[in-house]
């Protein structure tokens, strides 16, 4: 039999019981009810920006404009969005023109405020990009660790200011390069990493104390394993953990929903490891973002922009409640919680959505979780431009798409951005395509003056109206998740899988019917002969062979007994309900491989399989 998933409470029991009561309240009363109860006092202090007299006059003028000036054909469709776009379930209906009438009860201080101040609609820093430019953090990873290391140095030389490392599928699915499951897939889609030695090769000559490194570890279990390989590598390369800056992904939704794998850990186990990671990294690697709730991949798998954020925030709330149940005060950990959003085609909505996300997260952390430090209220996020929008047809058009998405991310106040490369519908980017994606960001930053003024779209009747609207929509979707008993329950019951499958199928139909229009694909199609073919990346072919040899060499050099002892200690710790991270680090130090550690996890927790009936 498998061990029961145990969590030990060692901290403050008062916080633990507060969290227990709060969780019950959220499920029984609903999230928005709890939030509005806690916000009531603040709501009573609202001051309307527009006075009644002015609104009355605008109202009168609007009526005559609508009735006399506006062409009749536009009156019936006044509140409809004209186009249906990729990545949106149904576009939020919006008026042909917005006026103060759409923002009757706008309170400047409470709804918009100043940058760096609650409710953070305008950004988390007072000077935003004047103070700190957005991090240009390209994704990189393919082949052997040495291949990826070369591309990292190429990108840094061209001006990248952060790095986002992606791993190959065996690494993400936690199999060693010599596992039969890994056959044919080593070094594809990302870098192969099996042991601490690979991590050291991957990071050779990279200034770990200065550059922020994002490890796209996706899953909680993988975050613990790859995170351990990374921490031991950094230590052996002479870098202190306290100096390390960067991010891991550590998202349970990635492990349980977005991925499908031949073997997956059960939801409760994934969640335990998720919170173990938060607890351990917060204490030992204080400048590291111990989590990046990944709305991006969820949306790419097939959700709309509302569910993307609702799921990420729900996971974040559930993890916070679990940290509190373990006795940690929210102010002890919230400051390093980060998010990862996709940015899609609905340009103004995307800008509004990022503004709304900051405001909503502030309300949730302050009023629902009871955090009192400003940093705990910050919704900081990385943005990647939409991958699903990239077309194989006329691939250079993708440069225009990535540029618009990047612009929306900048106007939305993102901390860090990756612009997707134009050849990603074919393969991982060539060096040339990678460079263009970096240049998109540099051109926006250096050539346009767009970052001069903080939150430049604030005060636009349209953008403020959309910001309010999307905030309400996200909260409504979160309500439906809590009504099911929280996100973990919704996942166990297959609700999220079903939502994704339905969305993806519906969207595909709309694309094929030409309702959603994609230039060069289902509208304005060019003659194939007139489009020159692009170069497509070729993977290094020796990755699998070299990784096998390296594994063999490492296994012959290490002490078998010490590795086995270290792995056995992970099992013992799990039986006692302890945090597993320190034990995984010890195993990594002994040169246990990623696959060996994952095998221990499977032994402890068992394997979960959700079937999708069609």
């Amino acid at each position, binding site marked *: 039999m498998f061990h029961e998933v145990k969590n030990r409470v060692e901290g403050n029991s008062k916080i633990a019981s507060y969290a227990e009561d709060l969780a019950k309240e959220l499920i029984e009363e609903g999230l928005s009810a709890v939030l509005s109860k806690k916000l009531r006092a603040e709501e009573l202090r609202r001051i309307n920006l527009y006075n009644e007299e002015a609104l009355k006059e605008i109202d009168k003028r609007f009526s005559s404009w609508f009735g006399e000036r506006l062409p009749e054909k536009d009156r019936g469709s006044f509140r409809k969005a004209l186009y249906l776009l990729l990545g949106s379930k149904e576009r939020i209906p919006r008026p042909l023109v917005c006026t103060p009438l759409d923002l009757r009860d706008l309170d400047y201080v409470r709804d918009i405020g100043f940058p760096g101040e609650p409710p953070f609609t305008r950004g988390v820093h007072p000077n935003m990009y004047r103070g700190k430019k957005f991090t240009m953090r390209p994704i990189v990873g393919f082949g052997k660790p040495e291949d990826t290391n070369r591309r990292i140095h190429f990108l840094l030389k061209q001006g990248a200011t952060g790095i986002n490392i992606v791993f190959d599928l065996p690494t993400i699915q936690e199999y060693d390069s010599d596992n039969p499951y890994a*056959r044919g897939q080593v070094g*594809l889609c990302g870098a192969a990493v099996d042991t601490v030695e690979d991590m050291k090769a991957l990071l050779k000559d990279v200034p770990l104390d200065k550059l922020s490194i994002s490890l796209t570890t996706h899953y909680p279990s993988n975050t613990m394993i790859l995170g351990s390989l990374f921490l031991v590598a950094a230590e052996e390369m002479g870098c202190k953990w306290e100096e390390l800056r960067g991010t891991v992904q550590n998202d349970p939704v990635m492990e349980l929903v977005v991925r499908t794998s031949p073997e997956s850990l059960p939801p409760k186990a994934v969640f335990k490891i998720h919170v173990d990671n938060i607890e351990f990294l917060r204490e030992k690697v204080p400048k590291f973002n111990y989590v990046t709730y990944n709305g991006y991949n969820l949306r790419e798998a097939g959700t709309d922009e509302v569910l993307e954020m609702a799921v990420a925030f729900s996971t974040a709330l559930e993890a916070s409640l679990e940290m509190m149940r373990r006795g940690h005060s929210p102010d002890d950990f919230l400051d390093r919680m980060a998010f990862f959003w996709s940015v899609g085609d609905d340009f103004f909505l995307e800008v509004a959505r990022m503004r709304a996300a900051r405001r909503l997260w502030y309300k949730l952390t302050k009023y629902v979780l009871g955090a009192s430090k400003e940093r705990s209220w910050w919704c900081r996020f990385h943005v990647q431009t939409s991958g699903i929008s990239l077309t*194989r047809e006329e691939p250079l058009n993708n440069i225009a798409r990535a540029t618009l998405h990047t612009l929306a991310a900048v106007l939305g106040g993102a901390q860090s951005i990756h612009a997707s490369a134009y050849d990603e*519908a074919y393969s991982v980017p060539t060096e040339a395509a990678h460079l263009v994606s970096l240049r998109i960001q540099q051109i926006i930053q250096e050539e346009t003056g767009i970052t001069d003024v903080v939150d430049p779209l604030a005060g636009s009747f349209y953008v403020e109206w959309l910001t309010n609207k999307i905030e309400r929509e996200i909260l409504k979707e979160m309500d439906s998740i809590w009504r099911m008993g929280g996100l973990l329950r919704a996942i166990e019951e297959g609700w999220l899988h079903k939502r994704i499958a339905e969305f993806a199928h519906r969207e595909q139909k709309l694309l094929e019917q030409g309702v959603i229009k994609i230039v060069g694909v289902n509208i304005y199609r060019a003659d194939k002969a007139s489009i020159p073919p692009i170069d497509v990346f070729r993977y290094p072919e020796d990755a699998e062979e070299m990784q096998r040899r390296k594994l063999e060499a490492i296994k012959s050099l290490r002490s078998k007994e010490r590795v086995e002892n270290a792995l056995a200690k992970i099992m013992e710790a799990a039986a006692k309900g302890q945090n597993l991270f320190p034990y995984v680090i010890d195993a990594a130090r002994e040169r246990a491989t990623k696959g060996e550690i994952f095998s221990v996890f499977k032994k402890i927790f068992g394997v979960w399989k959700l079937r999708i009936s*069609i």
Partner: protein
Amino acid sequence: MGRRVKVLIAKLGLDPHWRGALVVAYMLRNAGMDVIYIGNAMPDEIVKTIIDEDPDVVGISSLGGAHISLGREVIEEAKRKGVYEGRVFIMGGVIPPRDEKKLIELGYDAVFGPGATEKEILAVINQKLKEKGIL
């Protein structure tokens, strides 16, 4: 009128991009076919399922770059086990153009990229089923 066409859809190896495979699964179901979606599987598991379920069409989804290496094994294993003949084998996903021909040479009846439409997919499957005398 013929019997219902039976389709097996699998994600090849460890590739987690399952959106396209599910979309195609829904699409074929709506076109009146019986669809079994088994999620991620390695070539031997896929062939084992072919033996158990006896599908008319085998759809393999690969967006992870393993379409040639593991895709070849699916065909070879199916031939070894004597279940290659009398079925339509389809590969779909992110496949560089130069590999499309190679997959056909390996024994796939058709290859679909990200731009493939419902119409195309259904037309090609039906045509191949007829060519092979399955329908």
